[in-house]
């Protein structure tokens, strides 16, 4: 299980005159914990949106498990095993928390889910995330914190091989951050590869095996958490020094 899971080759994406991604290449091992950092507007979210398929990149290729998914429709990528959470929570607002999880279980994970046990599986995920007590509540009424947890839960319900978490920890209290980190680590132990975008530095650094830093659409450095902290480019990007 240590082969390459995801490979992104020379990816570029423009919005009109604005270059959001410029020749980005990276590779993720199966089972890896990758941290993705960079200042606001550096292209992190654009990158993972291209990987998950809601946006198509202009130039470059994306391979997942050795298969070219560059032009694959987003729902097929989800079925192939790529799941993401959204930075700004996008719950299915008319549904209960439980039904929110039924959607990915019945679609993305359909071929992998045991039939007839969708509800049990959904409950198991909720248990893992700690949302069981909210299962039958309307998702629109959740607190911000619970909505972020729901984001994570819904991504998990897709039974992904690659989980991309986009700032799930923003706004969480320190003990909750620790809680979520523990969950992610447990998932990783069960074999799920994780890409984490996070602004809470200590969380990324504690969690990731490897960190990539983006600035202005380009990868400015890559390495172990320790080496990243030392990097001059990163410091410049973050501190404007």
């Amino acid at each position, binding site marked *: 299980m240590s082969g390459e899971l995801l490979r992104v080759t020379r990816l570029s994406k423009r919005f009109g005159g604005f270059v959001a991604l410029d020749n980005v290449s990276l590779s993720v091992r199966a089972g890896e914990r990758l941290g993705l950092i960079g200042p606001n507007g550096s292209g992190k979210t654009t990158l993972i949106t291209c990987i998950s398929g809601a946006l198509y990149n202009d130039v470059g290729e994306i391979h997942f498990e050795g298969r070219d998914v560059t032009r694959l*429709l*987003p729902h097929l990528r*989800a079925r192939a095993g790529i799941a993401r959470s959204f930075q700004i929570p996008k*719950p299915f607002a008319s*549904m209960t928390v439980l039904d929110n999880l039924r*959607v990915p279980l019945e679609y*993305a994970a359909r071929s992998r889910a045991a039939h007839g046990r969708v509800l049990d599986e959904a409950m198991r995920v909720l248990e893992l995330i700690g949302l069981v007590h909210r299962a039958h509540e309307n998702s629109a009424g959740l607190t911000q914190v619970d909505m972020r947890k729901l984001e994570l839960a819904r*991504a998990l319900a*897709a039974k992904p091989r690659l989980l991309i978490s986009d700032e799930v920890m923003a706004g969480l209290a320190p003990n909750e951050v620790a809680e979520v980190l523990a969950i992610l680590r447990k998932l990783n132990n069960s074999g799920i590869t994780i890409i984490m975008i996070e602004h809470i530095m200590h969380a990324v650094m504690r969690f990731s095996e490897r960190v990539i830093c983006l600035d202005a659409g380009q990868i400015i450095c890559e390495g172990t958490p320790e080496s990243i902290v030392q990097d001059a480019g990163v410091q410049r990007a973050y501190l404007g020094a």
Partner: protein
Amino acid sequence: MKSAAFWGALAAIFAAGLALTGAVANEYYYNALYLILQAALMAIAWNILGGFTGYVNFGSAGFFAIGAYTTVALNKALGLPLPLLILAGGAVGGLVGLGLGYLTLRLKGVYFAIATLAMAIVIETLVINWSYVGGAKGTYILTPEKHLWFDSYIQMLFVVMLLLTLAAVAISRMLSSSRIGRGLAAIRDDEVAAECAGVPTLRLKLVSTTVMGAMMGVAGAPFPFFVTFVDPSSAFNLFIAVNAIAMPMIGGTAHWLGPVIGALLVGTTQEIVKVTVSSEMNVLIVGVMLVVFITLAPQGIVGLARKHLRRRKP
């Protein structure tokens, strides 16, 4: 509602409809009921795309007219019997719905709504310039002499429409409480998130527009036999489109029962107001009800009822 109870209720309503034709001869009631059922069928159809999937269709009258004019054309060309005409109306409506899906489902929200409006206008212009079906002048359809064992043709039309509406209710319920229904609801709530949850959004939207188009075509197919005179201004009547939107909105769009309740309430009110006050009041009432409901009770009657039930529960 439990499945058995649901099917039982449908059967009971159909039986009641049949019994009615045995007990009451007065044709007026069948006229009124036919119009209410037609509105209900349109509302149910609209709600599949509008309520379940979240795409507003302003061009309902266009689909209705497609059904009506399919009947006009095929009746004139081949003289087909009514059941085949209804099937044909549904097929053509469904095809156009599918086309609409392909053409415009790349458009989100209001752009889609405007495109449906434009589509209805284009179809109307085509019909106006198609002289075989009467063009702008309109055309007559003589009701056939035969009407099975019913006392009159309108009785038979009423029973046919009842059957079609009940079928639509069943389809709508099946769609809404199934995996497909959850997929549609996910699209309505957040299309990007739905895609990322593995929902094949394009395919489901095509299913949704096709079913909607087919149902509306079916609703329009018997119409020429009902009015006996069809012209573009009656077949493409904006009031049809308004009702198709207002009824689900008033009844509640999220639940399959919403459009049915809305149609029964608004449709019945309309029929009564039409004969007691005036047709203008009729339109005014629909307008006011629509505005009041969506401002004060955006979840419609079904939403109000649910809230009420929830509050009563400890």
